[in-house]
């Protein structure tokens, strides 16, 4: 298990809390940055859930956009049925993504290495094509929500409250994943990453451990999907595309694999790169791509590892 101090994560949450803090203090904040950070927060939840299996479990899933899309489309489908209450939407999204992860994980975990990457990708592509074919929900064009999800009747996911709600969810997810990663389960999962044969010889079942981790990660990611649909008031198949899965992996690796809070930094850089560089120049991948390679080569431990002595 990687040692991680509490200072950096708390600073990160402090910075994210500046937006509502300043607003509460009467500073009129609007425009680019709050909206960008809102997206960062939602992506950070998804990436952090991926970090449980990728960083701690060492399972290179190239299909983590699938539970994101499942969460988002649960919002759309229930929206069409006039169900907009989070107390229903969120459990439905989590159960759907959890069942998906249970079934596909049970197959994917029979393979290792590159095959695992390809199989998780293939399952996510199945979700992508499945939602693309949902003609009632806009097919490839996507679907615009009638209204945002309400939380116990409150407008907590409305445009004015969304930021704070998403931040609270991110904080809760961080606490939860941190607790899990430090628990007996997290230790066994980290052991599977290092040496499955040894774990099995000690009387623990790596397959069951990794499968449960995949289900937990998918259920959390589905919550990010619910938030993402609400933030955009729109869902589209791109939520489940392989590029999205790749983005999530980049966020985890760039931010600092296995650190959990690194996902926030990774999400910030990736979202900023896509939105910010995209505005500056249409050739932004020319900057983004080499930047990524340099980061992987020179930032061992990712952005969260800068200034942290390791070993």
């Amino acid at each position, binding site marked *: 298990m990687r040692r991680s101090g509490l200072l950096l994560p708390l600073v990160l949450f402090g910075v994210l809390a500046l937006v509502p803090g300043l607003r509460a203090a009467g500073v009129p904040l609007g425009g680019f940055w709050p909206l960008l950070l809102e997206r960062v927060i939602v992506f950070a939840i998804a990436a952090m859930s991926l970090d449980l299996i990728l960083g701690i479990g060492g399972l290179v899933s190239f299909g983590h956009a699938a539970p994101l899309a499942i969460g988002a489309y649960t919002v759309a489908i229930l929206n069409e049925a006039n169900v907009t209450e989070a107390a229903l939407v969120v459990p439905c999204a989590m159960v759907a993504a959890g069942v998906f992860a249970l079934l596909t994980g049970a197959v994917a975990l029979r393979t290792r290495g590159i095959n695992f990457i390809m199989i998780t990708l293939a399952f996510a592509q199945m979700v992508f094509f499945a939602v693309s074919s949902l003609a009632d929900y806009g097919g490839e064009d996507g679907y615009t929500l009638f209204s945002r999800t309400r939380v116990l009747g409150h407008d907590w996911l409305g445009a004015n409250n969304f930021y704070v709600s998403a931040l609270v969810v991110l904080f809760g997810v961080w606490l939860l994943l941190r607790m*899990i990663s430090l628990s007996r389960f997290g230790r066994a999962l980290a052991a599977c990453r290092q040496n499955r044969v040894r774990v099995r010889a000690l009387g623990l079942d790596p397959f069951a451990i990794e499968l449960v981790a995949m289900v937990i990660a998918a259920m959390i990611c589905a919550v990010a999907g619910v938030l993402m649909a609400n933030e955009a008031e729109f869902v589209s198949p791109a939520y489940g595309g392989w590029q999205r899965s790749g983005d999530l992996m980049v966020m985890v690796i760039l931010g600092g694999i296995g650190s959990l809070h690194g996902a926030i930094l990774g999400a910030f850089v990736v979202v900023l790169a896509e939105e910010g560089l995209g505005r500056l120049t249409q050739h932004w991948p020319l900057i983004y791509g080499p930047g990524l390679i340099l980061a992987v080569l020179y930032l061992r431990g990712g952005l969260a590892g800068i200034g942290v002595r390791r070993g």
Partner: protein
Amino acid sequence: MAEALLEIVGLRKSYGALRVTDGVDLRVAAGTIHAVIGPNGAGKTTLIGQIFGAIRPDSGQIRLAGRDITGLSPHRRARLGLARSFQITSVLPEFSVLENVALAVQGSHGSAFRFVWPARSEAKWNGLALAGLERVGLAGRAGDLASALSHGEKRQLELAMALVAEPRAMLLDEPLAGAGPEEAARLIALLGGLRGSCAILLVEHDMDAVFQLADTISVLAQGRVIASGTPDAIRADPVVRAAYLGEDF
């Protein structure tokens, strides 16, 4: 002979035309040390792999305390009281030495499925783990990363991981390889002290250790048991001397 704790009947395994295990029968009585010796490539490691469940035999049966375990997965066998050490050291390199053993305690005393409370601060398990490290003489390195250990120390760590599970039977694949003379003497004394509480199937090339420790010795060559008996009987066996020990032993 006393009731066998570990019993292997008619075990066979081939890799293509190569018969690595060619009809092996073995009985290890409870609380005794049964050494399996034989030249390189005789099939000793493959035999341990099959007993532990990592390798599936083509035919034959493996029984632990009378129960047929031939079809069980390794983690189920471990839960039934079987422990092993590996010829090629197998530890968790990114964990501390203590945490390696604490995970072994978790495997035998608990489960993976508890999601609350930090595992590292479970005092009872850490205490058991530290006691295991003391028995093998590695307590001084409890806080170091397992990857920082020497080869011999990793063997000691593996032995500690097996011991803390309080197994009914241990399969040890060359536990003394890489140990210095002092460590070896300590480990030999330790293994001797386990007699009576744990059945041990010991694969070892150090013949002094084998003849000092074993209650029974089986000689394996080309996948077959060519001789089995007390150390004195094995020492005197002309077939064994020709096949393995050499005339001077």
